[in-house]
C-alpha cells in the first residue's frame, strides 16, 4: 500500500500522468476506432439482425459505467480511511464521467430494446438497478455541490458512494436472480464466451476503447483539479 501511495502525491501524479497520458490517449483511439469499424462491418446476427451492432456501444458503456463506480467507491474508501487528498480528487472526477457512461448504457439499451423486445423500457431487475446507478452518480455529485466545505463534502459524498456499492452486485447478478427480458452473461462465464468471434472481437476492442477513454479523461480531469487547487492556494496566499 505504501508503494502505491508513493505514486499518489499530486506532484508525482502530474509527472507520471504526463508520460502515461499520450500512450493512453493513443491506445483509446486505436482500440475504439478498430472496435467501431469492425463492429459496423460485422455481419447481422441470425436472431437480432443488424441491431446487434448496438451491442458494441451498449455493453462497453454499461461495463465502463460499473467499473467507474468501482473506481469511485475505491477512491472514496481510500479518501475516508487514509484521508488521502488525491483519492478524493479521483472520486470527484470519476463521478461525472461515470454518469455519462451510465446515460449511454441506458439510451443505447433502450434503442436496442425497442426493436428486439418491443419496449423502450421495462421495470425489470437489470434495467431498474442500472437506473439506480445513474441516481447514485447524480446523488453523489449533488451532495458534493450542496456542501461548501470541501473536506466535509468529500467525506459525506464518500459515505454515499460506499453505501451505493451494494448496487454493483445487484446489477451484475440481476439477470440470474430475476426473470427478465435482458439477456444473460455471454462473455465472462464458466466454459468461455458463448458469443461468435465475429462479434466478440469488435466487442472486446470497443470495451477496451471505452475503458481507456474513461481513464484518459479521468487523468486529465485529475490534472485539471490539481492545477485549480494550486491556483486557489496561490490566490489565497496573495490575498491581504
Amino acid at each position, binding site marked *: 500500500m505504501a508503494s502505491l501511495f508513493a505514486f499518489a502525491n499530486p506532484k508525482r501524479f502530474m509527472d507520471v500522468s504526463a508520460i502515461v497520458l499520450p500512450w493512453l490517449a493513443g491506445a483509446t483511439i486505436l482500440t475504439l476506432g478498430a472496435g467501431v469499424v469492425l463492429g459496423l462491418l460485422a455481419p447481422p446476427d441470425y436472431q437480432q439482425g443488424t441491431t446487434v451492432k448496438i451491442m458494441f456501444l451498449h455493453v462497453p458503456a454499461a461495463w465502463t459505467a460499473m467499473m467507474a463506480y468501482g473506481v469511485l467507491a475505491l477512491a472514496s474508501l481510500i479518501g475516508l480511511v487514509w484521508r488521502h487528498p488525491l483519492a478524493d480528487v479521483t472520486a470527484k472526477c470519476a463521478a461525472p464521467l461515470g454518469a455519462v457512461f451510465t446515460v449511454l448504457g441506458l439510451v443505447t439499451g433502450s434503442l436496442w430494446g425497442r426493436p428486439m423486445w418491443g419496449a423502450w423500457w421495462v421495470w425489470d431487475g437489470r434495467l431498474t438497478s442500472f437506473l439506480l446507478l445513474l441516481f447514485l452518480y447524480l446523488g453523489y455529485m449533488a451532495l458534493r455541490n450542496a456542501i461548501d466545505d470541501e473536506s466535509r463534502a468529500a467525506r459525506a459524498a464518500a459515505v454515499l458512494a460506499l453505501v451505493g456499492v451494494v448496487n454493483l452486485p445487484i446489477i451484475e447478478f440481476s439477470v440470474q436472480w430475476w426473470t427478465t427480458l435482458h439477456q444473460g452473461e455471454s462473455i465472462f462465464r464458466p466454459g468461455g464466451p458463448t458469443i461468435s468471434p465475429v462479434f466478440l472481437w469488435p466487442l472486446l476492442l470497443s470495451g477496451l476503447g471505452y475503458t481507456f477513454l474513461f481513464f484518459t479523461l479521468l487523468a*486529465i480531469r485529475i490534472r*485539471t483539479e490539481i492545477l485549480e487547487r494550486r491556483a486557489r492556494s496561490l490566490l489565497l496566499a496573495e490575498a491581504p
Partner: protein
Amino acid sequence: MSGFLAMGGYAAFVWPAYGISALLLGFSVAATLRAYAKAKAQLAALEKP
C-alpha cells in the same frame, strides 16, 4: 452503400445509438480538454509575476 445505411431495416435504432454515443463522448472529451486548458492558463497567469 444505401443497403449499409438502411441497416437491414433497423436504421432508426442503430444510427441514433451511434449518433448519441459519438455526441455524448465527444462532448465529454471537449469539456474535459476545455477545462484543462482553462486551468492551465489560469495557473500560468498567477505564476507569471
